[in-house]
């Protein structure tokens, strides 16, 4: 963590980025929560990562307000009446976004934009202008790639206008997900989404049926690809670095029976402490207008138990040195991966999580996408290492073995060549098959475009080029993308021809 002087003199940081870094520095001077020394050691040794959430939580990590309430009732605190037309609706949302906190300080969930805006469309041309300005405003003021909007599953005019403007604007923000259900989403709308995905790297496709079976209809996709409850969110997200803890094991048995339970206990204890403080002591659930006016319900928050590096963990435990021969290529190694995740899921489920009544009193697994500092020896969640991806259908089938364990987020990314732009319906065949086979979340992009998906979030290659030239850029996440490119080869995925 840089000190105040370093933050204040760093020419690569914008003013806003300096303020955020200084706030974090201040927060971390607090010692109210006394974390277990074993946990601190695990952080120091890289076995667990707290994702820099800060020492004393003053808001949940991820917040997914029910914006429909704003449309129907307005907000007393924000002094907003219910909007009456498309201009008032987009304006009310933009105002509210400024007052939705998160770990990044930006709202990680913007709402089901098609459902929210469709009732206000009278004149298509006027609505498209309003939506275009709305999306432009979001990209330039909510300048962080973890800002995420949803559309679908139904085909709406608002959805189409959002897609049209998304393609036209070519921005990294907001991240966008189509909730896709072949029975509810028309083939034409799905094809349109695939076509926009090939030109702008979004939307991604979420398995609507799968999410509904776990969360019910009131769920959202936020931040990278995080499944959360609408009107709730995620309390906290630390992550277990499986690649690292595997190195401490003398055998697979010892890993399963001693090492894994030890770290699961440390993670659980840490999450308990943070959630207890957040709910009982911090002001958020007591006085924040989002809670008081019903945009959020504390019971709909989930503690997210994250992990990374399953691929390297399995390869280490099975003594595989060539990543082209191990995880993702050898069914014995993959079977071990499934066994580890099953065991982990059982261990996590055994622990009674505080303030998680609506989540079965347990923490839910999240396959974290990694951070730039992880480097090349730690693949995101349960993904196959970049550069060792097998043929696409094998990669999809591999991923379906793991996706069911991760309701709060897991996904895979595929890079396509130009020829697919002419046949988006063929891409939809693949996506539909993938989701029907049990894949939770499918992202794609075209190798030659400016906007590309790094690990879960989007960046513009042109912004990273600016960073390379030592110029400050608006998007908070561009520097993360630069790091992932340089340290984890994140731009070098296999291209599907």
């Amino acid at each position, binding site marked *: 963590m840089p000190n105040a002087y370093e933050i204040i003199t760093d020419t690569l940081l914008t003013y806003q980025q300096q303020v955020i870094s200084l706030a974090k520095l201040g927060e971390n001077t607090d010692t109210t929560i006394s974390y277990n020394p074993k946990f601190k050691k695990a952080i120091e040794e890289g076995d667990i990562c707290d994702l820099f959430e800060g020492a004393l939580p003053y808001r949940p990590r991820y917040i997914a307000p029910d914006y429909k309430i704003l449309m129907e009732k307005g907000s007393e605190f924000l002094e907003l009446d219910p909007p009456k037309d498309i201009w008032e609706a987009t304006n009310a949302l933009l105002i509210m976004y400024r007052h939705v906190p998160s770990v990044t300080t930006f709202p990680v969930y913007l709402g089901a934009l098609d459902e929210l805006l469709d009732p206000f469309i009278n004149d298509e041309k006027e609505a498209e202008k309003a939506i275009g300005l709305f999306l432009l405003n979001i990209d330039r003021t909510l300048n962080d790639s973890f800002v995420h909007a949803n559309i679908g599953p139904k085909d709406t005019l608002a959805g189409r206008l959002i897609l049209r403007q998304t393609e036209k604007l070519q921005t990294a923000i907001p991240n966008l997900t189509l909730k896709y259900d072949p029975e509810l989403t028309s083939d034409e709308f799905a094809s349109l989404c695939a076509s926009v995905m090939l030109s702008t790297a979004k939307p991604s496709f979420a398995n609507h049926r799968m999410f509904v079976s776990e969360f019910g209809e009131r769920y959202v996709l936020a931040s990278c690809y995080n499944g959360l409850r609408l009107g709730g969110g995620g309390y906290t997200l630390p992550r277990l670095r499986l690649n690292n803890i595997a190195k401490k094991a003398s055998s697979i048995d010892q890993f399963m029976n001693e090492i894994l339970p030890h770290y699961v206990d440390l993670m659980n204890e840490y999450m308990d402490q943070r959630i207890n403080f957040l709910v009982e002591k911090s002001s958020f659930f007591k006085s924040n207008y989002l809670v008081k006016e019903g945009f959020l319900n504390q019971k709909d928050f989930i503690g997210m138990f994250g992990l990374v590096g399953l691929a390297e963990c399995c390869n280490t435990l099975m003594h595989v040195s060539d990543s082209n021969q191990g995880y993702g290529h050898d069914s014995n190694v993959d079977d071990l991966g499934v066994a580890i995740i099953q065991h982990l899921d059982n261990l996590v489920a055994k622990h009674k999580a505080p303030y998680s009544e609506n989540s079965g009193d347990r923490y839910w697994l999240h396959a974290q996408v990694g951070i730039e500092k992880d480097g090349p020896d730690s693949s995101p969640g349960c993904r196959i290492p970049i550069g060792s991806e097998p043929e696409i259908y094998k990669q999809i089938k591999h991923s379906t073995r793991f996706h069911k364990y991760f309701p709060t987020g897991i996904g895979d990314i595929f890079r396509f060549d130009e020829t697919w732009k002419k046949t988006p319906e063929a891409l939809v065949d693949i996506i539909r098959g993938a989701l029907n*086979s049990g894949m939770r979340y499918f992202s794609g992009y075209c190798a030659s475009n400016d906007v590309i998906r790094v690990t879960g979030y989007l960046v513009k290659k042109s912004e990273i080029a600016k960073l390379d030239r030592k110029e400050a850029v608006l998007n908070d996440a561009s520097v993360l993308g630069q790091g992932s490119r340089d340290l984890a080869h994140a731009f070098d995925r296999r291209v599907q021809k």
Partner: protein
Amino acid sequence: MFSAPVNRIIPFSSVDGPGNRMAIFLQSCPFQCWYCHNPETINLCVHCGICVTKCPSNALSVIDGKVVWNSLHCTQCDTCIKICPTLSSPKITRFTVDEMMIKIDEVRPFIRGITLSGGECMTYPEFMEGIFTQTKKMGLSCLIDSNGYRLFSDYPQLMKVCDGVMLDVKAVDSEFHLQLTHHTNEIVLKNLEDLLLMGKLQEVRIVVLPGYDAQNKITIAYVAEHVKNKAKIKLLTYRPYGVRKVGLDKLGTSMLSEKEMEFYRQFALENGASDVIIL
């Protein structure tokens, strides 16, 4: 159990018929077109062994008088194909119907159907019928990509399980067809009419040739008049990539411009076609 020599399987193809499909390329073709892009699919391997000594990664060997290809050692440098004197490839694998069905089953959730292509797949009609019969049971569509040298109406059982044919019409002028492909075209043109009657004509492909305006017009006009609005016509721009010397001598190394191709598209529309695209 019928089997066939397979040059290549593309598990996900978006260019061999509608949607995402598995494309299976069978080895050998009775035509020898000037502009063939993959001449290594024309003949079966005669096991002369010339490629074996030239392989830079030792992926080829001779066992019991036959050239054997080791796919694990192969780096796909294509040296063997480039030096093959018989327009063939040592990288051919023979598949039985059951073996091919395993391959298809692996990708079944992600594809809309399969396309049998080549070479010329109609060289192996019994194998095709076996594949299609089982593939149809999976709920997938079955397309044939063919040069039309064999009469489809001679294979009623195969046509029952075939959803459509993508037919190449290389030339309508019989003399020119013979020069261009080393083969006559009466059956090709009969197939065009038969497939229209059967309702199995998925699309017609015509390669538009630089320097052969009159022949291009004869072919396009004939196909357009026959097909009308009953199938798509694809006008393929001649591309010199992969074409061997005999073709380059006749057709050159340059391609027709977009404007020239658009002229032929309009020409097809004027002659009665309704759905014409340029590729």
